[in-house]
């Protein structure tokens, strides 16, 4: 047993506690902006440190906690997402959220939950990590105390999230009941297509789909995304979703890999439904966060489809896509945050004239949205290509066609935003953008383009990570 493998998690926890302490120590008239920067620096440091951990494939505590490349890949994804979120949220938090110390600390605890999820190799650890993340997010969604929407969103998220946890737990209990084990690899050994197993698997899938906001378990997402503070919305889209995917990949490709012929059909239908619903409903949205919520539903459908391949290529596609989606989302939410800070509204109309007021942000938004849509040469295209080659190889050509068609339709509403940005400005107010937010914008822009044009390195890394499962 090697405690060193847990360095990242411990560091995150310590960082979170430090933030709480600093929050108390810092005098009241201070803006608490420094807390955000401390957190960001700390996360960055952990991210950099975690680079050294590649190649390890060890487990801690009787194989219940595994540190392999896949886990590490996801952890770095979460760290990067948190880092970007912290950077662009400083001004937002200062402006709209009172309890900034608690905010940053809880965000770090959520990060810890995600990291645990990525490494969890048994159902209990997995569950507890997921609940840590979820409960923190329930609180954070309702953290914008002056906003009625925020509390409503928090309430909805909590109720539905708890209900979905119950469903998943119920499913887990059946899986445990049939196999007599909670460890994934042992479940895999004993799993057969018995009714109890299928019932448990189905309910677990349903519970996970809730976290992934897969149709028809998606209905909370738009409301919660809309009501939550923008950085939290971003984290929900980037982090919580990716963490659920980490769990999904492990559970379905290790524990339930022998039952693939059973779940594949269901998963393909769920993926297809997500693509369709996410995209056709997004067309109607006038609120940028709500629109991005529907878009993220569709994106989840795309990532989910990679599971169907059930091989390295498929997982590689999922990992690749999760990363590029993370960057695109960071860019889009960073710009949304800037706009909200500017005019206090999340409505898409508020973006009008952005291209003249701040060309950089307009370009970042455009590139991010189109990366989500999957237009070359943005990263989203290559991501879809990896996913779809993997699943088409398994014969899901219908899903490939559907996916491509829906992604092209999605351009419609992304374009509406782009059009708004390039139309005439409503007001002539000076548009001030904080440096840290600009950093995020530029990072996401460069990442979206670089990954799209030269996907080699990331693909190699994703491949490396995906191989950890086999």
């Amino acid at each position, binding site marked *: 047993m090697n405690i060193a493998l847990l360095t990242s998690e411990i560091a995150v926890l310590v960082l979170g506690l430090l933030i*709480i302490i600093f929050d108390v120590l810092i005098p009241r008239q201070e803006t608490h902006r420094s807390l955000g920067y401390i957190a960001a620096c700390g996360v960055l440091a952990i991210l950099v440190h975690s680079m050294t951990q590649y190649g390890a494939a060890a487990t801690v505590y009787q194989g219940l906690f595994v540190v392999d490349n896949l886990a590490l890949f996801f952890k770095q994804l979460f760290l990067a997402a948190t880092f970007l979120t912290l950077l662009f949220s400083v001004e937002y938090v200062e402006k709209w959220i*009172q309890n900034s110390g*608690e905010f940053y600390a809880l965000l770090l605890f959520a990060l810890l*939950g995600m990291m645990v999820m990525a490494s969890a190799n048994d159902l209990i*650890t997995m569950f*507890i990590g997921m609940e*840590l993340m979820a*409960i923190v997010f329930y*609180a954070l969604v309702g953290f914008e105390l002056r906003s009625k929407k925020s509390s409503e969103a928090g309430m909805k998220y909590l109720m539905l999230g708890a209900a979905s946890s119950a469903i998943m737990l119920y499913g887990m209990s059946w899986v445990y009941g049939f196999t007599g084990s909670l460890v994934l690899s042992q479940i895999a050994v*004993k799993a057969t297509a018995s009714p109890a197993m299928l019932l448990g698997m189905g309910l677990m899938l349903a519970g996970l789909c809730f976290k992934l906001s897969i149709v028809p378990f998606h209905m909370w997402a738009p409301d919660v995304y809309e009501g939550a503070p923008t950085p939290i919305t971003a984290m929900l889209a980037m982090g919580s979703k990716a963490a659920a995917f980490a769990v999904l990949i492990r559970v379905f490709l290790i524990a339930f890999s022998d039952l693939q012929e059973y779940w594949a059909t269901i998963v393909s239908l769920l993926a297809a439904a997500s693509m369709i619903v996410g995209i056709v409903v997004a067309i109607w949205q006038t609120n940028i966060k709500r629109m991005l919520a529907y878009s993220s539903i569709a994106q989840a459908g795309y990532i989910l489809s990679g599971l169907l391949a059930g091989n390295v290529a498929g997982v590689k596609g999922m990992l690749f896509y999760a990363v590029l989606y993370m960057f695109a989302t960071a860019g889009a939410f960073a710009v949304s945050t800037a706009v909200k800070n500017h005019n206090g509204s999340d409505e898409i109309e508020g973006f009008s004239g952005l291209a003249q007021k701040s060309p950089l942000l307009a370009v970042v938004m455009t590139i991010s949205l189109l990366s989500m849509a999957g237009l070359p040469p943005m990263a989203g295209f290559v991501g879809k290509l990896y996913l779809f080659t993997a699943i088409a190889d398994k014969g899901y050509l219908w899903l490939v066609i559907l996916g491509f068609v829906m992604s092209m339709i999605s351009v419609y509403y992304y374009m509406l935003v782009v059009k708004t940005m390039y139309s005439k400005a409503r007001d002539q107010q000076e548009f001030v953008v904080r440096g840290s937010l600009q950093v995020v914008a530029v990072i996401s822009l460069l990442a979206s383009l670089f990954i799209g044009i030269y996907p080699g390195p990331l693909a190699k890394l994703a491949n490396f990570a995906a191989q950890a499962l086999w």
Partner: protein
Amino acid sequence: MNEWAYTAAFFIFAAVTVASAVGVVTKNDLVHSSLLLALCFVGVSGLYVLLQADFLAAVQLLVYNGAIAIVFVLGTMLTRRSIRHGTNHSEADAPSRLIGLISGLFVAVTLGVIATTPWNYSSAGAVQDTPAVLGRLILTDYMIAMEVAAVLLLAAMIGAIVLAKGVDEE
């Protein structure tokens, strides 16, 4: 243990559990619901005893009855009385028949599953010293989960405080 007594005890606890659960969801007054919920938890802890999980039965009574149910009662009291009376009806426009159907189907499916699954019963005897075994498990194998649960409770506390405290009216 006596076979008959065991069976009788099971049916009593089961009946208490299910009946009070039904009461929880059908009672109109939230306070009644809360109290029935506590009763239900008692029934459940009785079932735990029958399943030879004494420690957990105790925890159930302590945590659920002692903490959660009380919190519910408090929560109900704290919100104004007017919303308590006559407002715990079922939602008027909720398709309660359909929901009933779904719930019924759910039970039916589950019963089918129970009936058709070839369970791998273990013939091993039950562990007698459950608290010790549980303690060892939690502090060794499930160490990380334990720690995470601790963080979870901390986070929940922080979150609950911030949320409940509300906006500072400066």
